[in-house]
């Protein structure tokens, strides 16, 4: 891919655990979490990664920003190989991460201090930090709350602060690891609106999620399967119409696909590539 910002080549990652046996000797237990993943991610794209627990989604995310280093294979971010010790800090600054539980990511007792934490650690000049913190808080709609204590905010608001903290690092790429899993529907919508906004502003977005209705908002969806790597890779339409394959890995196809399958089984002529409710409605109207 010409315009690729992240290039993953045959990535294998194994967790190694030392186990002590009854006789006192130790053995190494190896668990392979990623088995040969190759992925080219285009600059400015919005990629959703879906898969069951244990399929390696979070391991993949942590490899992308160098929190974990590949057992085998190669990852390059903006042309720099992640195994390069000298450049790893540049990469971490370029690839920000937002995790599931906002309570585990907030460190300061005042919102704006929390957002400033990342760039402060990078030694960014203080006037630049001020600017970045203000910009980040405005973008996530939390500027008015800048002097509040994070623990008094709702889950959705806390997650927006965590996103502002990631933005203050001025990254090109943001990896969201199930950012809405612990939020109520309102908080979930707030966070998804911000993710879409960041995508429009040109950031490269990688969203790990269990919610199909979030994955359909991306421009590319990758489905991971435990032990065997990438199962499906394509536009949301291309991926979600494969209802059999989705069910094989215990993912529920979107309603329009499910209902389309059922009507087809009864002999109706419903195209396989209908994945959204509006499309099914429109098609049925034409059929009538």
């Amino acid at each position, binding site marked *: 891919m010409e315009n690729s910002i992240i290039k993953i080549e045959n990535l294998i990652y194994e967790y190694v655990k030392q186990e002590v046996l009854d006789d006192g000797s130790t053995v190494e237990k190896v668990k392979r979490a990623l088995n040969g993943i190759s992925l080219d991610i285009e600059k400015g794209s919005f990629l959703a990664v879906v898969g069951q*627990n*244990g399929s390696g989604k979070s391991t993949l995310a942590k490899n992308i920003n160098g929190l974990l280093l590949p057992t085998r294979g190669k990852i390059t971010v903006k042309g720099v190989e992640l195994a390069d010790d000298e450049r790893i800090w540049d990469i971490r600054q370029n690839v920000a991460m937002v995790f599931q539980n906002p309570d585990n990511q907030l460190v300061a007792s005042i919102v704006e201090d929390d957002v400033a934490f990342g760039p402060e650690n990078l030694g960014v000049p203080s006037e630049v930090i001020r600017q970045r913190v203000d910009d980040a808080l405005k973008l996530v709609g939390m500027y008015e709350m800048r002097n509040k204590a994070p623990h008094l905010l709702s889950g959705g608001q806390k997650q927006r602060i965590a996103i502002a903290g990631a933005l203050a690092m001025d990254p090109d790429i943001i990896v969201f690891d199930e950012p809405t*899993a612990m939020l109520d*529907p309102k908080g979930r919508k707030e966070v998804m609106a911000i993710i879409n906004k960041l995508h429009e502003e040109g950031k490269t977005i990688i969203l790990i999620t269990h919610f*199909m209705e979030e994955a359909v908002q991306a421009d590319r969806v990758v489905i991971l399967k435990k032990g065997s790597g990438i199962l499906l890779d394509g536009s949301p339409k291309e991926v979600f119409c494969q209802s059999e394959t989705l069910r094989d890995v*215990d993912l529920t196809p979107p309603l329009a696909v499910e*209902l389309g399958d059922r009507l087809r089984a*009864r002999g109706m002529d419903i195209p396989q590539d209908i994945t959204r409710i509006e499309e099914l*409605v429109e098609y049925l109207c034409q059929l009538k």
Partner: protein
Amino acid sequence: MSIEVKNLCHVYEAGTPSESRALEDVSFTIENGKFVGIVGHTGSGKSTLLQHLNGLLKPTSGQILIDGVDITADGTSMLDIRKKVGLVFQYPEYQLFEETIAKDVAFGPKNLGIEGEELENLVREAIEMVGLDYEDYKDKSPFEISGGQKRRVAIAGVLAMKPEILILDEPTAGLDPRAHKDVMDMIKNIHEKYHNTVIFVSHNMNDIANLSDQVLVFAKAKLLKDASPREVFAMKEWVLDKDLDLPDVTNLCEALREKGFDLSETIIDIDQAEKEIYDIFK
């Protein structure tokens, strides 16, 4: 077991500057054996309500009757109430603590004075009820199993008390789609087997529509609506105005109705949607 809540109010930190009203004049009745869904946003008072139902919180004013017994009255045995009303908190797996799964599940009934074979039978039944093999899992550490399994073990710990009323606060929060389905199927099986009263909090309107006989909608400390899921989701504008969602299948069928399709009003399950759409084209 029936539940009757009358004019329940709860004020946190009453009389201080940080006083906040969590429940305001809430009244409803749940009949024995019903499956009840509770919906509402964070801060609407749902969790405060649940904690009243098994006596963890005392009302500021109002009454709660469980099978006619006023649990807010002086002298009511809280132990009896907690035997009858089992409460599964949000993220209950954080409360696992024992060295084996069997011991963890046994903790509740053991505290009630049950021991020996009776205790083992209860534990076995509870573990199998949540879909885990007793022999395979009883001696495992609750910390070496998957997240979805931990959640099930935590629910087994409450089931081992044989509650006549089972309350679950967002039982599928944070689970992946498969674990989500497993846990919802499991709750349905428990209800079908024991015919107990089940109350669950959920943000997932598809689950609410599929399972509940009765839905309670909360917002800002008040009970706004107490009705069947069909009645609730029939008030489309109202539901959306409250920042809640409609089930996917309702959205689809309403869109078709707007285009002139002759479908029943407020379809909330996919089987019915499939049948009615097919009938139109037959």
